[in-house]
């Protein structure tokens, strides 16, 4: 180990803005966080990293008054503080941007931002002033929604930005970000990182959780590593991504992306001809072959999610012609597609993916009820076996099988969702943001998993806002912009630069012959 991987102690540093001492949290008999002591200094970005379920979100909730600790205490400056609720923490200057979206869906962006602290003029709320201020904050973080948009109608990424804007509305001493970039695409991420740097420059203490280690490397002044609810240590800036990953997982990691495959020249599995989706895609056409990973890139709001939700019959849409396995598809619903061997995994795991109040097994089998339970009766034993297999196969870290899905950590929810969709044993899988919130150790497992699928002759579409993932995983990439498919990249042309260029300039790039089967690459 070199010097950069040695833990540092905080004693030599400035007085912390917020200090946690011996913080622990137990849910019933299960301790999810034990004895964490942590300083967050003014003017630093302090990253917290760890595997899924390590206890990062729990720690942040303790720090910001959303959850009460089982043991330990908080100090601001010298004085011990207790936050009975989140509002108390906020008025003390500590604010948390949640991993989950916590906004009132029926209210507008501005109304959400100012909820609980509305600006008034006399007895009236001052909508004009609030809208103006909202627009400013939105602009400062690079969000493109309008203050008067209803939050419920915004795409996930925009909602996340609204949530960030909400936290930054007032000056804060401590700002905690829990995976703020998980749902963002590149340009928003860049804007957000600038915002974080700006906060630091203004002397705020920033606590930052992310599974994107490049961000951590670029941003963090210090890095704290959690593993299994315990502190492993705090390191100064300068850790390589590789070193961070090793510290998190506690073992050496192999390569992230599987090697690319040779594309077989076979007939297409799925052909979409001129599919248009309300508020989304415009006459999108694409071809998918067995044995390939087709990546879909684009900026937020480019209509990728809408395109596939439309394809699934989950949004109003129409198409000239769609065929699957050579047969024309006339009636599109999730059920029909599933019967034909095509499934779609949503990007919105909380809102559209999992029943948060239901147990894991119920969630796992919801989509594949007919195959898990062949008879009329539910086969509980079979269901438990399926859960066992899924926990193994997708490395779902759960200490108690009777938890409800909402009690899992974010990354483990994502794995459960993946397991749920895969249980239907599909031939074509469309995965919207496959590794959203998944730690680096598990990412490679998921990539391997996708690789095994296509090697077994299945076809996979990956919609991803994470460029390295898109580039590392795809055999071919389509880029969307403004609801249209504007570019097709194959082979050597699949680079982050080309994707970004196509996504923003809108000029169609002919990077190779149209028929992907005609080309092979390694």
């Amino acid at each position, binding site marked *: 180990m070199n010097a950069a991987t040695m833990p540092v102690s905080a004693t030599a540093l400035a007085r912390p803005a917020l200090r946690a001492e011996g913080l622990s949290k137990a849910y019933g008999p299960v301790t999810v966080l034990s004895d964490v002591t942590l300083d967050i200094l003014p003017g630093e970005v302090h990253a917290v990293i760890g595997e899924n379920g390590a206890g990062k979100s729990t720690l942040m909730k303790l720090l910001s008054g959303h959850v009460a600790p089982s043991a330990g205490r908080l100090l601001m400056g010298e004085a011990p503080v207790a936050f009975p609720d989140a509002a108390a923490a906020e008025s003390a200057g500590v604010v948390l941007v949640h991993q989950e979206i916590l906004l009132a869906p029926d209210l507008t962006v501005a109304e959400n931002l100012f909820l609980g602290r509305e600006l008034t003029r006399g007895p009236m709320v001052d909508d004009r002033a609030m809208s103006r201020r909202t627009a400013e904050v939105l602009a400062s973080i690079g969000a493109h929604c309008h203050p*008067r948009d209803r939050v419920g109608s915004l795409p996930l990424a925009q909602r996340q930005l609204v949530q960030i804007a909400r936290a930054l509305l007032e000056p804060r001493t401590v700002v905690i970000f829990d995976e703020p970039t998980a749902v963002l695409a590149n340009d928003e991420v860049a804007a957000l990182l600038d915002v974080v740097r700006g906060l630091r420059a203004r002397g705020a203490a920033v606590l930052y959780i992310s599974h994107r280690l490049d961000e951590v490397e670029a941003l963090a002044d210090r890095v704290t590593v959690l593993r299994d609810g315990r502190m492993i240590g705090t390191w100064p800036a300068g850790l390589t991504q590789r070193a961070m990953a090793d510290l998190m997982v506690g073992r050496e990691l192999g390569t992230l992306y599987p090697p690319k495959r040779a594309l077989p020249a076979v007939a297409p599995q799925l052909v979409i001809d001129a599919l248009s989706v309300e508020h989304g895609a415009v006459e999108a056409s694409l071809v998918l072959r067995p044995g390939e990973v087709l990546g879909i890139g684009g900026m937020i709001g480019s209509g990728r999610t809408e395109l596939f939700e439309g394809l699934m019959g989950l949004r109003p849409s129409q198409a000239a012609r769609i065929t699957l396995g050579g047969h024309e598809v006339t009636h599109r619903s999730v059920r029909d597609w599933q019967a034909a061997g095509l499934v779609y995994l949503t990007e919105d795991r909380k809102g559209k993916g999992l029943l948060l109040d239901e147990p894991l097994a119920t969630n796992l089998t919801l989509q594949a009820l007919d195959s898990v339970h062949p008879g009329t009766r539910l086969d509980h034993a079979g269901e438990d076996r399926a859960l066992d297999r899924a926990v193994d196969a997708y490395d779902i870290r759960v200490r108690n099988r009777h938890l409800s899905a909402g009690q899992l950590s974010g990354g483990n929810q994502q794995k459960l969702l993946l397991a749920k969709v895969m249980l239907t044993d599909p031939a074509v899988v469309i995965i919207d943001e496959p590794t959203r919130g998944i730690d680096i150790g598990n990412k490679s497992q998921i990539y391997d998993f996708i690789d095994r699928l296509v090697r077994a002759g299945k076809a996979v579409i990956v919609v991803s806002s994470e460029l390295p993932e898109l580039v590392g995983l795809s055999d071919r990439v389509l880029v969307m912009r403004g609801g249209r498919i504007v570019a097709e990249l194959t082979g050597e042309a699949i680079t982050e630069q080309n994707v970004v260029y196509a996504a923003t300039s809108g000029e169609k790039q002919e990077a190779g012959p149209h028929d992907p089967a005609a080309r092979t690459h390694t």
Partner: protein
Amino acid sequence: MTSVTTEIAGAPRRIRWADMGPFIALALVVLIGTLINTNFATGTNIANVVTRSAFIAIIAVGATFVISSGCLDLSVGSMMAFVTGVMILTMNRLEPTMGANAILVGAGFGLIVGALCGLLNGLIVTVGKIEPFIATLGTMGIFRALITWMSDGGSIPIDRALRDPYRPVYFGNVLGIPLPVVVTLAVVLVGAFILYRTKYGRRCMAAGSNADVARFSGVSVARVRTTAFVIQGLCVAIAAICYIPRLGAATPTTGQLWELQVITAVVIGGTLLRGGKGRIWGTVAGALILEVIANLMVLSNMVSEYLVAAVQGVIIILAMLAHRFIK
């Protein structure tokens, strides 16, 4: 830059159009009424219908608050009877000493009683943490029993001496506009102001949209909801004040099943029953729709008297369907 401008101009216009639903449905019903019956569009008839929809409209304004905050109040009809009974008894008791002033004092007392009834509902729901449906079903029974008990199962008429001075409150008019309509307008304007223009209104919607989020944001959901119930109680009392001169008595059947009419008016008006979205003006349109339908049932001779309720049910469902279709 241009795209931003079009967005700003575009967003509110789209919202407005969807909100027009109840008014279009109302226009439709009125149009049909005019076509099938010549008596419908006469001034007197329209005035009657509008005036009489005041009760449901006023109470429904309160219900819009309760429902947008994420609750439900089934007790309004019984509460109305109870408040009416209390007010009449108070007025009758005071009349010998105060004369016509008893009406004023009685009305003031009625407002207090209404607010307290609402407070009771609110506290049971928020402090007792009981599902509003059950809590207000319970108080519905309680208020209904109280008026039955107060009237000994009969009726509580207002003192003859008070009838004439009180009469104009329902039958009078200001510049040709019937007084109950003026009162309704005032209630609606105040209600719309509170719901759309004050902090409280914002928080009310937030509590109904997502109570957890509201709580995180430092909004006391319990207080917001309790206040909504109190507002509901006040609206009931205002309706009761206008109601007394019309029928001059409180009976154990006063206001029976109004709760269903009120909720129907609110929902037809575009407020979501699950909370988070309140449409005060839509509510008024909803109340008018119900009253116009009832009026048409009386005016037209097409249906057997036994089937009136069926036709009413069908029309309400059709109006909702039309509204959905237009959207």
